[in-house]
């Protein structure tokens, strides 16, 4: 059976390499192509702007002491859907980003797949 997200290119912004490695493993299992991971905001912004083909992004909210929202702005401007990952849940997001798709750490493959599909508007097959 083909994975619903087969071949999708997903940017990962996450400062902890172990968590980033987990996300990559999960994405690879879902037959996605992980991009990055970016370990800080500047790197994340550059990747969000310069990566030509980008289908979605997984953004850790707190990246090395800074908040990831500048990266989200770039993606929003490009029309690339994204999912926030955070230790706080959606309640930890500032007003303007409430309603964005959010997953809480620690996460499972199923929660990541569901969140990405919701953000990208991909229907279950």
């Amino acid at each position, binding site marked *: 059976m083909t994975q619903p997200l087969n071949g999708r290119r997903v940017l990962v912004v996450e*400062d*902890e*390499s*172990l968590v980033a*490695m*987990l996300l990559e493993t999960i994405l690879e299992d879902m037959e996605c192509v992980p991009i990055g991971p970016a370990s800080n905001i500047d790197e994340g912004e550059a990747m969000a702007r310069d990566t030509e083909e980008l289908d979605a992004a997984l953004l850790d909210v707190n990246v*090395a002491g800074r908040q990831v929202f500048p990266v989200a702005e770039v993606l929003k401007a490009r029309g690339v859907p994204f999912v926030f990952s955070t*230790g706080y849940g959606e309640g*930890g997001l500032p007003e303007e980003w409430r309603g964005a798709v959010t997953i809480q750490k620690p*996460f499972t493959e199923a929660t990541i797949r569901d969140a990405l599909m919701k953000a990208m508007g991909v229907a279950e097959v």
Partner: protein
Amino acid sequence: MLGWGSLLTTYVRPGASHADLASAFEASPNPYLLLTPDLHIAEVNQAYVDVTGARRDDIIGAPLFQTFDAGPSADAPENVRQVKASLEKARDTRQRDHLAVVRFAIPRLADDGREVFDERIWSATHTPLMNAEGEVVYLLQHTMDITELSPTIRADEPTTALDALVGGAVLRRAQSVQEDNRRLEIERNRLVEMFMQAPGFVAVLSGPEHRFQMHNHAYTQLIGRQDIAGKSFREALPDLAQQGYFEMLDQVYQTGQAYEGREARVQLQRRPGAEPETVYLNFICQPIRDESGTVAGIFVQGYDVTETVRSVHIQKLMIDELNHRVKNTLATVQSIAIQTARAHADPATFAATFQSRILALSHTHDLLTRSHWEGADLQAMLSHETEPFGSSRISLNGPSTALPPATALSLGMIFHELATNAAKYGALSEADGRIFIDWTIDREAGRTLKLVWRESGGPKVSEPSKKGFGNRLIERNIRHDLAGTISLDYAPDGLIAELTVPLDRTPAE
């Protein structure tokens, strides 16, 4: 003996005849007493001498209440207190003070030569006499013996209606008004005292411009300035412009509706030239109305709750940070579990490997906790990872170095993976193998740790064909988490790992 004339020189109008005045006082049928500000007798007139029966030479220069102590009765101390309080009030306020009725017993020599006390009732007026500089130099006591006006000396003796009508009732009324005044004054002083000493800040603002009529110590402490009496609120606190408080006061004054502020943020410039400080206040501004019900001013009172607001804020930050760290740690453990499981199909080896990785993480936490999360000692971390293999086989050589928490947590896992690999495939897999770990701190452009891990005496090594989780973790962690570099050289004699890690990175970099 001083004459009245010389004593009066200081206060009478120029042109008056001192001699005339002096003889007028001396001849007056009213008893007069002149006191120094410390209540010593300066002069008395003949009427005073007559009424008290004292000898002039005995009493001039003596302290008043030593000379006249109101006798041995139980009421005497209270009688003395009343006269003394009135004199001191006249002196301290520089205002004339009346004592409408006061009992004061006067000593007299009885026929048998013993000293007896006659209970007398007096009415006294105390007038401060000031010099050109406005200093009180004398107090003049004008007394009237009103014992005869009083129907009785003892209040519990019956009085006739006529007595009551012509004298007693009036006197008692006078006495009661005097008592009321005294009580009111004590009450008023107590209120003013409470107002001034209140721990909260208090101010009374008067009129439509909100002029400071009264304010307490806590208020000047709060605003960091003293000279505000009489100034309008806008003049006294120009730094509050644009913060809405001027308009709020205007509104309270105009509408007569009280305003309550809770944890209201105020930017105050407490010292000239200093940066404005942020304080948080709980306060209430209540309209003060005059007899006609019109708003005449505003009563302001409140507390500085800055510390409380700050500590609540800090507590929230700490809970958020704790939550973030716990969730991240769980995600890290989850990652280790999943990646370890992929390399270990056998549950027994999975459990052992997974557990040793978690314990390595846990040990770094212990070291950090011991230093109150200020820094973990590099040598202690290396010793812990390598000591199971025997200290004689491990050489640790470098300066004492405290690693910042994030760096320590990463390096702890990296050293664990290097040691595990050495035990499985490298120098520690053979009895004679040794590891030399040398490090230095480079201080050019911030501190940089340079560490070399060199294995020798093990089996011949070569670059692994497929990188396991351990190796990926080492490389990714150094580059991604620590912004450092690592080179792994699989030399035939043994692995040489060289790593550089910047130590003074701020978390935002």
